[in-house]
């Protein structure tokens, strides 16, 4: 045991003996692990926000589908849905997309019936929109920043439909910390949104809330509703119901459910990392080989030399992973993911105007250490082993 401890201590000495090689290996690991940890941290943060979105949203989302394409449903569907047993409310909603300004800034227009607005909200700086002569909107923080909008600002007409066009007024701006998804939002009343998209009497979907325990029954009932129940759609409409449980399953899948590209990228990065570490371990390889020769000549066994190399790799990977966690944390927390958050969240500016959601958890941290260890071991232990198995006289040459 004593022998192992003393040999292990030389693993640390070995790191310090070759500062350039250790530094280069550490930098290579940082370059790989920091984006990995940031990506995983951001994913976890988004998962938390998504969980809240599910929690505070409806139990069921009902939309129309024809020929496999999503289509709007008539607003008259609302009362028909509300009479189903177990349904508490069926709120029509419009969610649409447009672009504004010279820079074609992407906007998500969301319209909700004014009567469904709460009396008072604190998530908005300003007030909620009202129905009236002017179109009134609450906008997201990124949108306000990009279009230089303040509360009270007027938006020149940005749409044209058979009923003409309207000037719009900004009556509020969402607080930046309420959600990632508010940043490009233009929130107005249902009528205003319908006016913009010239879709009077139509809703993108219905947000249905059910009495507890009725979700499945209501879902079945909606799917069994006759197609004629959807007047004004031209018939042949299917009702597509997305339940909270369906999405919760996606969330519960967690990291295992992350689809290929992110993982594929990092598999490639890890392979490249191994090659990089192999190259960096080549720095001073002749000197290292000679050093191993001297150790062997003075009575060190091959397994002791490899154990020393293993400890060196473990210390390097644990140290680099710890530093990576710290860098990822500082980058996300104090620099709000400047430059890097946009890599993992589509549509985000280089300097995000919203707090980037993130949570660094033990599993990715453990994976970072493991991956760091695999990279350093694969990259450097081979060369150590090669040097350690030759007779000392040969290694010292």
């Amino acid at each position, binding site marked *: 045991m004593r022998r192992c401890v*003393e040999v292990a201590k030389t693993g640390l000495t070995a790191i310090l003996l070759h500062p350039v090689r250790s530094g280069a290996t550490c930098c290579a690991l940082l370059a790989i692990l920091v984006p990995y940890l940031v990506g995983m941290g951001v994913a976890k943060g988004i998962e938390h926000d998504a969980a809240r979105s599910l929690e505070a949203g409806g139990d069921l989302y009902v939309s129309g589908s024809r020929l496999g394409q999503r289509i709007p449903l008539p607003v008259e569907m609302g009362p028909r849905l509300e009479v189903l047993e177990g349904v508490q409310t069926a709120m029509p909603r419009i969610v649409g997309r447009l672009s504004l300004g010279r820079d074609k800034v992407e906007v998500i227009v969301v319209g909700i019936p004014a009567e469904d607005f709460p009396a008072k909200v604190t998530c908005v700086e300003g007030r909620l929109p009202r129905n009236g002569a002017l179109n009134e909107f609450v906008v997201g923080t990124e949108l306000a920043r990009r279009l230089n909008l303040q509360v009270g600002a007027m938006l020149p007409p940005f749409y044209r439909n058979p009923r003409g066009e309207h000037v719009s007024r900004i009556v509020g701006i969402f607080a930046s910390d309420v959600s990632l998804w508010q940043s490009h939002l233009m929130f107005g009343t249902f009528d205003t949104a319908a006016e913009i998209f010239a879709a009077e009497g139509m809703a993108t979907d219905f947000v249905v809330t059910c009495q507890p325990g009725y979700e499945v029954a209501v879902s079945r009932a909606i799917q069994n509703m006759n197609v004629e129940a959807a007047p004004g759609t031209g018939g042949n409409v299917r009702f597509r119901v997305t339940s909270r449980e369906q999405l919760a399953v996606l969330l519960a899948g967690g990291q295992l459910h992350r689809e290929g590209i992110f993982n594929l990228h990092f598999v490639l990065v890890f392979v490249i990392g191994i090659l990089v570490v192999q190259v960096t371990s080549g720095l001073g390889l002749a000197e290292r080989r000679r050093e191993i020769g001297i150790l062997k000549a*003075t009575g060190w066994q091959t397994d002791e030399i490899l154990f020393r190399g293993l400890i060196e790799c473990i210390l390097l990977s644990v140290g680099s992973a710890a530093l990576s966690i710290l860098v990822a944390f500082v980058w996300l927390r104090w620099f709000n993911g400047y430059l890097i958050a946009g890599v993992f969240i589509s549509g985000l500016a280089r300097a995000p105007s919203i707090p980037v959601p993130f949570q660094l958890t033990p599993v990715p941290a453990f994976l970072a250490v493991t991956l760091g260890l695999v990279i350093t071991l694969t990259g450097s232990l081979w060369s150590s082993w090669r040097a350690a198995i030759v007779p000392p006289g040969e290694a010292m040459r």
Partner: protein
Amino acid sequence: MIQTKNLYKTFRDRKKGELHALQDVSLTVSAGRFVLLTGPSGSGKTTLLSLLGAMTRPTRGSITFQGRNLAECSDVELARLRRDVGFVFQNFSLVPRLAVWENITYPLIPRGIPVAARFETARRLLRRLNLEDRIESRPEQLSGGEQQRVAVARALAAEPQLILADEPTSNLDLRAAGELTELFEEIHGSGVTMVISTHSAAMLDLATDVYTLTEGKLSCG
């Protein structure tokens, strides 16, 4: 103490073909002797010392040390046997980035000797070699003679009964070579068996046995 019988060492080179570094070398070194190996460059002195120091295996023949035939030992056993032999290399072979005391005591690490005891050992040896004030220096801060004395201290660290030295004075000036010769005499005086390859005439006076190697063949005197 150590004995070779009909020892052969052949190196194979793609261009030059087979090179017979040692041929039929039989040598017996008894405990307490001071053996000198002389001979021209390339005669096989370094090869013979490497074989005696368990650093390489013979092509044929046997080497018996501590009652074991090195030719039949595993790599692990050879490594363990090397711990009982002190080796002084021609080019010092110190690790440049390690302090003097670390260089001296590195062979003690696999024995599980704690750092404080190792440091104490290094200090004791350096005091004996008049280098105590250089204990924390790096090898490159030392002169050639000092580096070779550090290498001797490393060879002595594990208190071996046999010391092998491969042309230890060849890279030193006359004064340093003289000091080293005195040091070897002192070490031999403490009962350590010495086998040294050298061209130095000064060491001839100390030797109890002198062998000459010529083209891989050993002869007495």
